C-alpha cells in the first residue's frame, strides 16, 4: 500500500469525475445557479431553516430552470469570503449571504465578480451588484405588543433577547410601544441569553422571567423552547421565525414568521429575465416578508379583531409602529406627536423606549 503514490490515483479520480460532470452537463440546458450561504445548520428550526425554505421555494417555482446550492454553518470570519468566492466562481449567478457578519466579505467578493449578483441579508452596504434585504419584523412585534397588552394580567412581560443589536432593540421597542398603547401599566423585562440558539438556555430564561411574574413571553431567539416553557407554566408566548403553534398549542398567541420565499423567487426571476437591479429592500407585512402565524383560537374576539385591524392598518400605512409621541426610558421625548421615526433612526436604534426595564448594554 505504501508504495502506491497518491498522485496517479488522484489523477485517475479527477478524470473520472470530469467525465461524469460532462455527461451530467449535457442532459440539461444551463439552469440558472443560485447559491446560499447560511450561518447555522438548516436543521436549526430558526433563522437558517427559514432561509432554506425560501431556497426550496425557488426550486419549486422554476423547477429545472434553476439549480440551487447552499453551504451551511459557515462561521462569520475568514471562512465566509472563501465560500462566497467559491460560489461565485462556480457559475452561480445570484448569491444570497444570509447573516450580518458576511457583509464585508460579500462586498469584497462582489468587486471581483461584476457579473454575479449578490444579496446580503440584514446589512447596510450596497454596490452595483450587491443588494441588501431585510424584513420589518418590528411590524409583527407591534401586533404582538397589542395582543400582549390585552392578555397580560400581571402587567409584566418577559422578553428574551439574543444579542443587543439594533434589530433586537427595535423589536423590543416596537413591542413595548404597542403594549403600553393598550395597557399603560405594563412593563417589559429583558433577559439577554447571548446566543441565537441554545434551547436549554432559552427555556431557562423563559422560566426565570415567568418566575419574576411575567405572564407573556416574547423571544428574539430561534428555538421553540420558550414557547414550550410557557406552555408548561401556563402562560402566553409569542414565537419567532416559524409558526411554533405545535410546540405549545395552549401558550402560542402567534408568531412572527420569516417569509423569504417571495423575495427569493422575485430576485431569481429578475436575474433570469435580466432586469435585476441593486437596491435596499426592507419589506414589511404588506410585501409578505413576514407574516403573523395563526392567532390562538383562545383569543377573545375583540383582541383578535384588534390584531387583524392592526395588520390591515400597517399594510395600508395608516399605522406606523414608531409613531410619536415616543419617550425614552428617562422620559425624554424622542419623537413628537404626529411624527414617526425614519428608517435611518430605526436601522441604528440603540436606546430603549419608556416601559422597558433595565439598561441597554452599551
Amino acid at each position, binding site marked *: 500500500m505504501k508504495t502506491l503514490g497518491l498522485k496517479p490515483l488522484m489523477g485517475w479520480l479527477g478524470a473520472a469525475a470530469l467525465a461524469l460532470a460532462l455527461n451530467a452537463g449535457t442532459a440539461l440546458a444551463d439552469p440558472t445557479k443560485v447559491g446560499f450561504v447560511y450561518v447555522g445548520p438548516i*436543521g436549526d428550526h430558526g433563522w437558517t431553516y427559514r432561509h432554506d425554505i425560501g431556497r426550496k421555494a425557488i426550486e419549486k417555482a422554476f423547477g429545472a430552470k434553476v439549480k440551487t446550492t447552499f453551504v451551511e454553518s459557515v462561521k462569520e470570519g475568514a471562512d465566509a469570503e472563501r465560500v462566497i468566492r467559491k460560489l461565485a466562481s462556480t457559475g452561480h449567478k445570484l448569491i444570497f449571504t444570509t447573516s450580518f457578519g458576511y457583509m464585508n466579505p460579500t462586498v469584497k467578493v462582489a468587486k471581483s465578480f461584476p457579473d454575479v449578483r449578490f444579496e446580503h441579508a440584514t446589512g447596510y452596504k450596497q454596490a452595483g451588484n450587491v443588494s441588501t434585504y431585510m424584513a420589518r419584523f418590528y411590524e409583527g412585534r407591534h401586533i404582538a405588543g397589542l395582543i400582549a397588552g390585552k392578555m397580560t394580567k400581571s402587567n409584566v412581560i418577559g422578553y428574551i433577547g439574543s444579542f443587543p443589536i439594533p434589530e433586537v432593540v427595535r423589536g423590543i421597542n416596537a413591542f413595548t410601544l404597542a403594549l403600553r398603547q393598550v395597557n399603560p401599566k405594563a412593563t417589559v423585562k429583558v433577559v439577554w441569553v447571548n446566543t441565537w440558539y441554545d434551547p436549554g438556555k432559552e427555556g431557562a430564561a423563559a422560566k426565570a422571567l415567568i418566575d419574576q411574574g411575567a405572564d407573556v413571553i416574547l423571544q428574539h431567539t430561534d*428555538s421553540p423552547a420558550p414557547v414550550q416553557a410557557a406552555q408548561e407554566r401556563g402562560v402566553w408566548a409569542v414565537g419567532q421565525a416559524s409558526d411554533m403553534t405545535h410546540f405549545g398549542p395552549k401558550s402560542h398567541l402567534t408568531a412572527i414568521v420569516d417569509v423569504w420565499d417571495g423575495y427569493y423567487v422575485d430576485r431569481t426571476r429578475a436575474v433570469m429575465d435580466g432586469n435585476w437591479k441593486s437596491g435596499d429592500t426592507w419589506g414589511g407585512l404588506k410585501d409578505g416578508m413576514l407574516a403573523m402565524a395563526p392567532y390562538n383560537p383562545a383569543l377573545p374576539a375583540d383582541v383578535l379583531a384588534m390584531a387583524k385591524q392592526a395588520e390591515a392598518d400597517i399594510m395600508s400605512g395608516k399605522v406606523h409602529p414608531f409613531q410619536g409621541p415616543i419617550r425614552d426610558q428617562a422620559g425624554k421625548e424622542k419623537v413628537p406627536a404626529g411624527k414617526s421615526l425614519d428608517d435611518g433612526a430605526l436601522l441604528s436604534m440603540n436606546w430603549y423606549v419608556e416601559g422597558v426595564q433595565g*439598561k441597554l448594554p452599551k
Partner: protein
Amino acid sequence: METLAAVLVTVIGAATPLLFAALGELVSEKSGVLNLGVEGMMLVGAVCAFAAALTTGSPAAGILAGAAAGMLTALLFGVLTLSLLANQVASGLALTIFGVGISALIGRDFVGTPLPRLPLLEIPGLSDLPVVGRLLFGHDVLVYLSIAAVPAVIWLLDRSRTGLILRAVGENHEAAHALGHSVIVVRYLAVMFGGAMAGLGGAYLSLAHTPMWAENMTAGRGWIALALVVFATWRPGRVLLGAYLFGGVTVAQLHVQGFGVDIPSQILSMLPYLATIAVLVAISADSVRVRLNAPASLGRIFHPDS
C-alpha cells in the same frame, strides 16, 4: 417561597443533563480512559431518544434508545482507543465531530416536530403540598434517575468489588493486569457506561428539558460535563455539587438580568464559568487529596506487552 421552589425546579432542569454526562465520564475516567467525545455522545443520544420516542410513542423506548445510542457511540471510541490503542484525547475530539454529523443526519426528518414532554411522576397528595410538593415530587423519571445515580456510582466505585477493580485499573493498569484483571474488558465496560449516561443526558434534553430535536441542541453541555469531572476531583458527590452549582449560577444570572441590574449581560454570562474556576481553586488547595482521587493512568494507553 413558591417562587423559590419554581426557580429551583428550573435549576434542576439545567443541571440534570450535566449530572448524567459528568457522572458517566467520571466512571470512564476512573478506569483510566479520558473520553472527550461527551458532546458527540450526548447529541447521538438526544436524537435517537427523540426518534424512538416519536416513532414508538413510548417515552420509555426513547430513554432506552438514548442510553443505547450513547453506549454504541462510546463503543466506537472504545474500539479505537482500547483495541486499536489510538490516542484518547484526539479520538474523543474526533468522536464529537462524528457525533455532530451523524446526529444531524439521523435527525433530518425530525426538525420542527413536537413531542409531548416526558410525563411528570406526580404523587397525588404529595405533589400538591406547598413548596416542597413541586420541588420533591413533581419531576420526571430522568431527574430522579440522575439523582439516584449519584449514590449508585458512589456505591459502585467505593463499595463494590467491581469498583475496586475499576479503580485499580485506572490507578495502575500494569499492576491490575499482573493481578489477573482484564484491563481492556473493565475499560470497555466503563467507557460504555459513560456513553450510556451521556446518552441519557442527551435524552433528557430532547425528551424532557426542551422536547424537540434541533441540530447541535446540546450547545456545549458535553464540554461543561467534562470540566465538571475535573471540578469534582473525580468524586461523584462533588459532580452533583458542580452540576447544580453551574446550573444554579446560569439560572441565577438570568434572574439578575430580569431584575434589571446595570451590568452588561455578557459579563453576567461569564459567571457560571468564573464561579466554577473559583470553587475549583478553593477545593484544590489540598494537593495530596486531589492527587489521590485522580486516576493515575488517566489517558494512558494500555498494552500488555508494553
